[in-house]
C-alpha cells in the first residue's frame, strides 16, 4: 500500500515535472514570439517638412532600438516621460550621429525641439528644426539609424511647402537620399548633377568610350561622322527613355555582355569595311545604340531618379552623355583625319591595329560579364 502510494506519488511528481517542463517550454515559446512580435519588424520613421523659412522634422524610433544603442536595460522605461527626459540628451546625440543633412556639401546642424514617448507604438518621437533663409536647391540626407540590425528600415517622407514630394526607404542597402527642391534653384541643381553624372559615366566607362572610338576609326567626312554619332545618340536616347520610364527593362545580365559584343563587332566591321569599302557604320551605330541605351539606363536607375523630376533627370543625364561623346569625337576625329592626310599607309595600320584592340577588349569584357566571378 505504502509502495503503491509512493509509486503514485512518484508518478504524480513525474507528471507534474513533465507538465512544468512543458509549461516552461510553452512559456518560452510564448515569450519568444511575443518578443519577436514586440519588435520583429524593425522600423523607424522620419518626416521632413520644408518651407521657405525652416525645415521641421520628426524621427520616430522603437524603444527597443534606442535602448539597445544606449545600453538601457529596460526599453519600456523610455515610455515614461520622466525617464525619457533623463536620457533626452543621449537620444538626441544618438540620432544626430546617425542622421545628417547636407546642402551643397555643407553639413546643416539641426536643433532638437522636444522628445516624447509614443506608448501606443512602443516608440519615442524626437522633433527637430533647422532655420534657413530659403529652401536649398539640393539636400543630401544620410541616414543609418540602427546599423546593428541589418533588417532595419527607415521610412522617409519629405514634404515641401505642405506637399508630399518624396517617399523613400532607407535600409542596409541604401542610406543616402538626394533631394532636389521644387523651385528654380532645385531644378538647376538637378540639371547640373545629372549632366555631370552623364559625363562622368562616359569617361569612367571605357566600354562606351571604346565603342565611339571604334566607330570613328575608319574616319570620313564631317557629315558622315555627324550621321554616325547622331544615329548612336538617337538610338540610345530611345532605349534610355523606355527603360527609365519602366516600359522596357531587359536584365543587365543580358545588356552588359551584349554591349561588350557590340564593341567586338565594331572592330570586326572596321577591318571588313577597310577591305571592301562598305561603310554601314550609321546603321550599326543606330542598332547598337539601342543596346547601349539600356546600359545608360542601368546607371541612371542606380543613381535614383528624383520623384516628380524624372524627365528633367533623364534629359540632363542624356545631355551629359552627349557632351562627353562630343568631347571624344572632337578629340579623336581631327587626329585621325590628320593622320590620313599625312600618310595613308599609316592610317590603314592604325585602323587595323586599333580595330584588333577594340575586338580584343570587347571579347575580354564579354567573357568577364558572362563568366561568373570566382
Amino acid at each position: 500500500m505504502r509502495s503503491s502510494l509512493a509509486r503514485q506519488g512518484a508518478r504524480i511528481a513525474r507528471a507534474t515535472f513533465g507538465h512544468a517542463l512543458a509549461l516552461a517550454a510553452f512559456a518560452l515559446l510564448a515569450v519568444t514570439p511575443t518578443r519577436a512580435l514586440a519588435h520583429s519588424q524593425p522600423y523607424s520613421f522620419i518626416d521632413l517638412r520644408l518651407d521657405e523659412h525652416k525645415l521641421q522634422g520628426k524621427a520616430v524610433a522603437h524603444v527597443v532600438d534606442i535602448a539597445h544603442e544606449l545600453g538601457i536595460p529596460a526599453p519600456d522605461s523610455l515610455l515614461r516621460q520622466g525617464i525619457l527626459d533623463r536620457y533626452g540628451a543621449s537620444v538626441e546625440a544618438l540620432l544626430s550621429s546617425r542622421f545628417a543633412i547636407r546642402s551643397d556639401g555643407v553639413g546643416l546642424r539641426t536643433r532638437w525641439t522636444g522628445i516624447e514617448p509614443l506608448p501606443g507604438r512602443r516608440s519615442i518621437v524626437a522633433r527637430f528644426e533647422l532655420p534657413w533663409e530659403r529652401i536649398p536647391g539640393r539636400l543630401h540626407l544620410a541616414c543609418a539609424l540602427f546599423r546593428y540590425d541589418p533588417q532595419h528600415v527607415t521610412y522617409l517622407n519629405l514634404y515641401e511647402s505642405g506637399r508630399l514630394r518624396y517617399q523613400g526607404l532607407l535600409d542596409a542597402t541604401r542610406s543616402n537620399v538626394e533631394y532636389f527642391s521644387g523651385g528654380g534653384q532645385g531644378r538647376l541643381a538637378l540639371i547640373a548633377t545629372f549632366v555631370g553624372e552623364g559625363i562622368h559615366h562616359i569617361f569612367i566607362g571605357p566600354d562606351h568610350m571604346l565603342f565611339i572610338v571604334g566607330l570613328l576609326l575608319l574616319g570620313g567626312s564631317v557629315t558622315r561622322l555627324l550621321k554616325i554619332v547622331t544615329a548612336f545618340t538617337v538610338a540610345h536616347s530611345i532605349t534610355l527613355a523606355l527603360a527609365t520610364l519602366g516600359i522596357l527593362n531587359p536584365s543587365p545580365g543580358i545588356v552588359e555582355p551584349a554591349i561588350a559584343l557590340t564593341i567586338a563587332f565594331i572592330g570586326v566591321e572596321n577591318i571588313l569595311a577597310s577591305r571592301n569599302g562598305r561603310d554601314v557604320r550609321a546603321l550599326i551605330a543606330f542598332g547598337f545604340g539601342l543596346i547601349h541605351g539600356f546600359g545608360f539606363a542601368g546607371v541612371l536607375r542606380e543613381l535614383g531618379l528624383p520623384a516628380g523630376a524624372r524627365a528633367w533627370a533623364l534629359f540632363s543625364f542624356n545631355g551629359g552623355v552627349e557632351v562627353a561623346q562630343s568631347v571624344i569625337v572632337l578629340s579623336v576625329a581631327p587626329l585621325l583625319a590628320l593622320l590620313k592626310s599625312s600618310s595613308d599607309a599609316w592610317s590603314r595600320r592604325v585602323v587595323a591595329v586599333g580595330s584588333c584592340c577594340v575586338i580584343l577588349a570587347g571579347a575580354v569584357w564579354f567573357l568577364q560579364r558572362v563568366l561568373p566571378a570566382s
Partner: protein
Amino acid sequence: MKRTFRQWVIQGAMLAAAFGAAGQPRAAGAHEFWLSPSSYRQSKGDTLEIAAFVGTGFRGEGSPYAAPRTRSFELLGAKKLDLRPATLNGELVFARFIGADAGGALVAYESGFTQLTLAASDFDRYLELEGLTQPRAARARLGAGAEDGRERYARCAKTWIGGGDGTRALRAAGLTLEVVPLDAPSVGSPLRVRVLFRGKPLAGALVRAWCAPLGRGWAPRNEAVRDSAGPRAQARSDREGIATVPISGVGEWLIGVVHMVPCREREAADWESYWASLTFAPEPLR
C-alpha cells in the same frame, strides 16, 4: 500507464514544438504576409481600412506601407480601383475606402523585391520548412558546395471582403503568384483554390491554411490577443494548379503559398520567391 505514455508523448511534442519554433532562423520565422481588413463584410457606405501583417502561425506585427516597394495595390469591387494614390509611405493602415455597394470586394497587393541572404544551412532549413522541394533539390545537387542563400522575395497578398456577389472572390487579380478560389468560401465545405504563377496554373505548390478566431463581428481579432497556431490544413496543387483545403470552422482564414524560382537577374540574387496569401472569413453554416 497508457495515459502516462500519452502524456509524455504530448509533452514531448509540446517541447519539440516549443524548442523548434524558438530555434527557427529569423527569416524563416517571419514570413507570412497577409492583408487584414477592418471588417470581412461590407455594406454600401461602410468605411473600411486595410492593414497588413507579417508573422508566423497567422499571428504577426503590423507592416507599414512601403510606397517605393509597392508594385500594385487594387480594389476589385463593382469597379477596379488603384488604391496607391490614397496611400502614405510608413502608414500602418494601407488604405481606407468606402464600400460602393454590398457586393463584396477583393483587395490585391503586390510588392517589389526585398533582398535577403541566409547562411547555407539556414537557407536549406527554410526551404524544407516551406516545402520548397525544387530549390532544395537543386541546392542538394551542389552538395557541400552550396553557398549562402541569396534570395529576393516579393509579397502577393489578397483579401476577400464578403458581400452579396460571391463571384467577385473568384476573379484573378493578376498578381505574379496568386491563390484564386474556385468556389465562394463557406464553412464546412472544402475550398478548391487554383494557384497561378505568372497567370498559369502552378503544379506541386504547397498550399497551407491557417484559421484564427474572429474578433467582434466580422473584424479580425486584435493581434495583441491572438495566438499563433500551426496550419489547419495543407495540400499540394495538382497539374491544373488546383488544391483543396477543408474549411472546417468559422473564423478568419489565411491560405498561403510560396513559390521560388531561380532569379533572372543573377547579380541581384540566386533565387526569387513569391509569397501569396488570401484572407477571408467564410459564411457560417446555416
